[in-house]
Structures are given as structure tokens and as C-alpha cells.
């Protein structure tokens, strides 16, 4: 059963004003429509927005923000709401700004390899458009119907993250409506209207709008770097008995910078779906399995990659690693290489057994801390009858990467939700204490982060937020400040 906070008051005059801005069909305060935006996949407690608005133009977004700012109404932007962190659940009610109708691919520059898109463009739409030019983006293993720009501004990761880093590192320019309604641009498009190729060498003002626990402006256009698709795919798969051995292998291989994706998954995550409740791993199965995805232009290039990979395996084996060449389960491998994936996006691989819920302690953690953190996580999770379904992934090089446990739970049962929530928060504390930092975090995590933060950092956050959003209308309550 869903617990729901009590409703705040709907003001029909506000609805009327919003209808005037976006048209009768695109703004509403009807409860059944609001209800569908009140929850997501995560453990975050459902909350109802008071109004839902679907703008179709930049001018409309500006007018909505001007009005909301004037009336001090909270605004929570939304594209597909699949962030797994409750980020689109309106903590403070107010306007749910559904951006899905602004979904034009404005440009694909096939020469300079960047695209300009609106926030409602989904991975599915961009994938089919880019394929015509043999181009790709670093596709996440999420729902193809989710937004590319939201993924980028939330430091999303994808199938090219070992090579190019986070998807936010691919941002080349942005057009943003501030919480006060003004239109701003960052990156090259700020200097020359039609130049969307790069955020540099200007100050990285895109940081004002990326990676915040609650976004700080409404993105209306974004420029993103895209990349050519070499024709030859070769995936190296290997297993180890421990995460220590896996981390060492990923580090050594990562040093050669030959992979697009360099990921290790625990046995529990390699199962389709993740076992719920926890079930022990068979004794003869390795605990860690890795896939290293490479793309080559020629057979010779592929052979050179194979040679390097063999060298790495030999080196690791010589050093006493339990590393073995292995076969990655076919369905799971497809899910990692055929992206975006409708099958994985539908959450089958993760939640099918548990029923409806997933959350994660998702973190950016230095490679040398993966093993100690994982050992603790395993204790925490198994004690709560949850599978330690953990993923590690290198981000551009070897200094840090993703450490994340995907935790399914049945949404029908409040006790199970709470069990998962507590486990995840406990895991997170362990990671924070080891220097890791959670990404796309719900407010519960934000509190833990800010508790540990340098006071100067928190103060700077507050000042920046205040400068951008003097009435604190955007994503109210999300920053846990």
C-alpha cells in the first residue's frame, strides 16, 4: 500500500493561469493525473504534485517559471521519472513540469559529431536517428523511453563511460531557463548563437546546472558530443573469485585504455533477474564476472586489442589472481552490449522477482576502495536478506568508477520497502566514509552527504542556489541543505 502525504491545497486560479500559458490540454490539477507522478521505482515516499504542466516551447517554460517564481510555487521538472532516486517526486507539491513534449532533435552534426536536442528526446528516438549517420551516444542500461538530456545533466553513465567518462562530460552547450524565468546559455552557444560545439575554453558554467541533487534550472536545449560506431565488436569476459582480483584486473586493463565499457558484476547481478530474496551463490560459481567491451575499425586493430587483453590476463595470473577467461551469460551480455535495450529498460533484469521496486546505493568510488566497501555492503545486504547485486565500472581511466548495488524489493509491502531503504542508507554511509560519493541521490542520501561536507562547500552550494533561485522554487526540499 502507498502511504501518501496529505494534499496541499489546489488553487483553481493557478490552474487557470497555467492553462492560459500552455493551453487547456497541457495543464491540469486533476488528481488521477497528478497521482501518476506521485511515485517512482524507488523507496522514496510518494508525494502528489498540485499541478501538472506540459510546455511545448521555450517561451512557455519561461512564462511558467516567471509565474511560479512570482507566486513562490515549487517546480519539479520531469522527463520520464526513471532516475531511481525519487528525484521527480515533488517533495513540496507545486508544479510538476513534464518536459516530454519538447522532443525535437534540432541538429545532428555528422561532420563535427555533436547533436542538439530538446529535453524530451528519448534514448530510443536519438538512437534511431543517430544510427542513420553511424553515430552513437553512451547509452545507459535504462529505459529507452527516458530522456537523454536528463541523463547527461545527472551525471549519467553508459556503454562508453570507460572511454569518454560520464555523460555530463559530453555536454557541449546548454540553453537553460532560470527559476526566475530568464533564458541563459552556457558553452559556445552563449557566444555565437549557432555554435554548439564546446563548453570550453569558457568557465564551466554548465556545472551550475549539472549534478545537483535537485536541478537548478530548466534545460530547454542541450548540445552533446556523439561518436562514430566502429564495426567490429569484441567483448572480453573474465571472472574472479574476489572483488580485489577483479579491481586489479579492471585497473590493469583500464591502463591500456582500449575499452569502451569496463565493468564487473557480482554473481547476483549477473543473474536475470536479481534473486529476491537473497540466495547464496553456488560454491563453484565465481563471485565476479566482467565484460570489457571494445570496438575496432579493422581486424588488425581488434587483434591488437586481443593481444593487449591476453597480456593483461597473463600479468594478473602471474600475480596470483584468480582471474579466468569465462563465458558471460548470454542474456546478461546482450543486455550490456545491445543498448539502449528494451528488455533491460523494462527492469526485467532487476526487479522481476521482487516486484516493482528498485533503489540503489549508487556511488562514485575510487577503485582501491571497491573491495573494502563491497565486503561491508555484503554483510549489510545479506543480513537483510537482500542480494549483494553489485556493479563496478571504470570511468575514463582508473582513478575512480561506479560502485553500485541494485536492490529490488516488493512495492506492495511497506516493511520490505523500509528494509531496503535502511539497507541502502547503511551501505551509503560505509561508502561515504571510504571517500565515495553517491550519485542521483534521494534526499535521505543528501542529508548524509551534507553532514560530512566541508562547511565552506555547503555554504557555497547555498549561495549558488540562492543566486540562481532566490525564492527556492526549483526542486524545493531536494538539496537537503
Amino acid at each position, binding site marked *: *500500500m*502507498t502511504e*501518501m502525504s496529505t494534499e496541499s491545497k489546489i488553487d483553481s486560479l493557478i490552474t487557470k493561469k497555467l492553462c492560459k500559458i500552455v493551453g487547456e*490540454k*497541457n495543464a*491540469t490539477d*486533476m*488528481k*488521477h*493525473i497528478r*497521482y*501518476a*507522478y506521485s*511515485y*517512482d*521505482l524507488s523507496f522514496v515516499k510518494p508525494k502528489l504534485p498540485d499541478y*501538472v504542466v*506540459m510546455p511545448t516551447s521555450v517561451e512557455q517554460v519561461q512564462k511558467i517559471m516567471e509565474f511560479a517564481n512570482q507566486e513562490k510555487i515549487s517546480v519539479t521538472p520531469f522527463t*520520464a*521519472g*526513471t532516475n531511481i532516486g525519487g528525484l521527480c517526486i515533488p517533495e513540496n507539491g507545486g508544479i510538476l513540469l*513534464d518536459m*516530454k*513534449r519538447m522532443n525535437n532533435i534540432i541538429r545532428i552534426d555528422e561532420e563535427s559529431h555533436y547533436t542538439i536536442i530538446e529535453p524530451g528526446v*528519448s534514448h*530510443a*528516438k536519438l*538512437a*534511431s536517428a543517430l*544510427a*542513420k549517420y553511424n553515430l552513437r551516444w553512451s547509452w545507459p542500461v535504462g*529505459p*529507452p*523511453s*527516458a530522456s537523454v538530456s536528463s541523463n547527461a545533466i545527472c551525471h549519467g553513465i553508459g556503454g562508453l563511460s570507460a572511454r569518454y567518462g560520464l555523460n555530463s562530460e559530453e555536454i557541449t552547450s546548454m540553453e537553460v531557463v532560470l527559476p526566475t524565468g530568464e533564458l541563459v546559455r552556457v558553452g559556445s552557444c552563449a557566444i555565437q548563437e549557432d555554435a554548439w560545439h564546446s563548453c570550453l575554453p569558457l568557465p564551466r558554467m554548465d556545472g551550475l546546472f549539472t549534478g545537483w541533487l535537485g536541478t537548478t534550472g530548466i534545460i530547454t536545449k542541450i548540445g552533446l558530443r556523439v561518436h562514430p560506431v566502429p564495426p567490429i565488436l569484441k567483448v572480453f569476459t573474465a571472472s574472479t573469485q574476489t572483488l580485489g582480483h577483479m579491481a586489479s584486473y579492471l585497473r590493469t586493463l583500464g591502463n591500456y585504455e582500449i575499452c569502451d565499457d569496463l565493468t564487473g558484476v557480482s554473481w547476483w547481478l549477473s543473474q536475470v533477474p536479481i534473486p529476491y530474496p537473497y540466495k547464496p551463490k553456488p560454491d563453484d560459481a565465481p563471485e565476479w564476472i566482467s565484460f570489457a567491451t571494445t570496438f575496432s575499425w579493422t581486424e588488425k586493430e581488434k587483434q591488437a586489442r586481443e593481444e593487449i587483453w591476453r597480456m593483461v590476463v597473463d600479468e594478473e595470473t602471474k600475480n596470483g589472481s584468480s582471474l579466468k577467461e569465462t563465458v558471460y551469460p548470454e542474456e546478461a551480455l546482450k543486455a550490456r552490449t*545491445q*543498448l*539502449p*535495450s*528494451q*528488455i533491460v*529498460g*523494462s*527492469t*526485467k533484469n532487476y*526487479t*522481476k*522477482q521482487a*516486484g*516493482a*521496486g*528498485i533503489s540503489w546505493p549508487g556511488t562514485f568510488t575510487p577503485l582501491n576502495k571497491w573491495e573494502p566497501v563491497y565486503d561491508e555492503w555484503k554483510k549489510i545486504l545479506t543480513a537483510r536478506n537482500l542480494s549483494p547485486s553489485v556493479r563496478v565500472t571504470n570511468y575514463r581511466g582508473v582513478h575512480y568508477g561506479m560502485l553500485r548495488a541494485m536492490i529490488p524489493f*516488493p*512495492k*506492495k509491502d511497506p516493511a520490505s520497502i523500509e528494509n531496503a531503504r535502511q539497507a541502502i542508507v547503511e551501505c551509503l554511509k560505509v561508502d561515504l566514509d571510504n571517500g565515495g560519493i553517491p550519485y542521483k541521490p534521494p534526499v535521505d542520501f543528501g542529508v548524509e552527504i551534507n553532514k560530512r561536507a566541508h562547511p565552506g562547500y555547503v555554504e557555497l552550494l547555498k549561495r549558488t542556489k540562492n543566486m540562481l533561485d532566490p525564492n527556492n522554487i526549483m526542486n524545493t526540499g531536494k538539496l537537503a541543505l
Partner: protein
Amino acid sequence: MKWDIPSLEELEDAVWKCTACGNCKTAYDFGPPPTYGEICPAGVEFGFDGNMASKGKIAFARGILDGQLTWTQDFVDAIYKCTICGGCQNQCELDHKPVIPEIIESMRRKAVKDGVGPMPTQKVIAQSMRSYNNPYQGPRRVRTDWTRPFKKAKNPIKNIMKKNAPILFYVGCTGAFNLPVRNFPVATASIFQKLGLDFGILGENEICCGSTAMRLGDVDEFKRVAETNMKTFKDLKDNHGVETIVTSCAGCYRAMKKDYSLAAEYEDCMDGLKIIHTTDFLFNYFKEGKIKFTKEVPWKVTYHDPCHTGRHLIDFDIDEDGSRQWKGSYLGKSEDNCLYDIPREMLKAIPGIDFREMGRIRSNSYCCGGGGGVMTGYGDWAAKNAGLRIQEGLDTGAEQMVSICPFCHYNLNEGSKRIKSDMKVYDLVELIDMAL
């Protein structure tokens, strides 16, 4: 008769399997090359997440079940703004996938039971069903108007109640009463005669299959006609030599194959009777070389897959006893019963046909927008949506759109008129008849 038609409450466990991932909102396939398309007519038109795909419909179901949502006029309206096309269902991979249309229809059943559904315009259908045994307010005697040319040509069609025949051609209400699509029963009967088949019709005794009532949640009305039909079919089988029921209507076909099977007496009534869609039925003759096309049809055509002869006939593999994964787990699907290749194969075999394929086809076909009571309840939206589909057909360079469902046929025609296109819509049987 005893029926096993689930209530929303009985489907609660399934409702709680939905993760709200929103995968159901678009049809996407990795390929290569990757293909993408909008799949939900309701989402395309109304846009809010609640209106869109099974994500939205299941949110409504969840809201009702957890007591957050109570009926308002707008809420009932939102529940009926869905063609029950199953486009969303085809995208989902979780355990509730097989029952997604049932979840949507169970909300409608609840609305009807609670006295708030269906929508006023759709209530006309229920009234018509009660008064005329068809949803078109068509007097009984009009049902056989389409047979007049046969009588005139001295090739009258048998009334199966009077003269036995092994094949019953179950015409369906749309073909019988809906003027713009009346040529399709004519073409069907004409082909049957050209093939020398011994067949008959129920004529004025034919009554609605109940599909529309079922889709609207009017379960009592559905049961009434379904029970009468099953008894009639049993009688035809036992006393009039009928072995096969052929229907050209995708809605009737789905109702008889799937909806009727929810009755405990289904096997008793229908065992030994083959129910087959005209396209499938004719394909057997085609394979045996008995259908020989002698005339050219020099047209540029595209083909629209109706939901009811397509993804509604997908068989889901469910772990019933828990021996393979867990009890109730959805394991996979089979499209073997979907009429995808058969109509295409026959169409392409017609001399002169220049076949063009649209982007959204087969299980990811984009619904015409007419199903689930939408054509009656929201005619303007239905035609608008059909216009989108027609445009997709036009974009292939096709000049004619062919389908195998009179409902789609009618609505696509409306769509074509609405966007002022020259695209003409035909039933496959019309082309076959022309080419024979």
C-alpha cells in the same frame, strides 16, 4: 454459464508488479538498425503520464486499489481514453505483462459496476445491444442487406439455420451495418463462391459477438450475447453440420477465441468447432494452389496490422506451477498465432502489387485508434489518430492501405478523409476478390 472474468481486486498482485519504468511508452527495437516509434495513441493525444501506456493505466489501477483515487467524471473519462490496443503491453517484460489489457478492462468493469461507466456516448452502444443485438442500432432485417447482389445474381447465400453447411461465415456487425465497409462481406462471400465452398450465414439470426461490450466493461451484456452465441454454435455443430466458423472481423475473432474461453462451458460448446479468421482460412486454399490470381491489381499498397489479429493473439508462456522460475512468472511469448506473415504473403502474391512496409508493424503496429470503444466514445480523436497512421502509410509512397479488420478499415477511412489524403483503404478480401 460460469465465467472467470477477473475483477480489479483479483488482479491486485499483478498491478503491484509494475515498476513505473515507462518502457511501455515507446516501441523501440535494438535492431540493428535501431527503430523507434510512438506506440500509445492515448499518450500521443493526451500526453500526461497517467494517460500514457500501461504505466499510466496501472497508476490509475493502483490509485483505485490503494484508495487514493475515487471516481470523478474526468477520471472515468481517462479510463475510457484507451484503445486497449496492447501496444504498451508488447513493451513490458514483467510478470503482469500477460494481463495488462485485463487490468485496463477490469477498471472499466468496476466503473460500470459502480454505475459511472461507460461514457455517455458509449452508453448508446449498450442500449443498442439490448434493443437490437448489435452496437449500431441496426434493425435486424438490415443485417442481410449486403446479400442482395447475390440474390439478384441468382447465387443466394445459404441461411445455415435452414440449409446445413460445414462452414459458417460469421459476418459481424460492422460489416453488416456499417455502410462504408459493407463491401468486405460481399467480397468474402464472392471469394467463397468462386472457390465453390459450401457455406452459410446466420442472416437475421446473427447477433453481436460481444467484443465491444467487453472492451467497454459491460460484462453483463457481453455474457448475454456470448452465451447465446455459444449455444447457437453448439446447435450448429450438433444439428447443422457446422465444423468451421469463419469470421472476417478481427474483433469477433478475438472475442470468440479469447473472451469466450473464459466461460466454464466453452469447451463443451466449442469443442470440435474450428474458429478461423478469413485471411487464415483463405491462406490454406492459397497454399494448396486453389487460389489462383488471374488479374492484375497494379497498386502501391501498404499493410496495417490490426491489434486484434496481431498482438492480441500473442500466446504468453507463464510458469503456471512454479517449476521453471516461479509461479506466475512470465517467461516468454509466441507470435505463432498472430496473422502477420499470412496477409503479407497473399498480398504480395497478387500480380501488380507494389508492396511498401511502414515503420511500425507486426507486434509494434500503431493502432488505428478505433478500438476499445474509442470510435464511439471519442470519434474525433479516433479519426485524428487514424490520420497519423494514414500519414505513415503515405510516407512509404503507398496509395492504398490494406487491412483485415472492418473496424480499422472504417476508422482509417475516416482518418484519410480527415487529413484530406487520397489514400484509399481496402480489406484484403477485396483485393483477393478483384484478382481472382
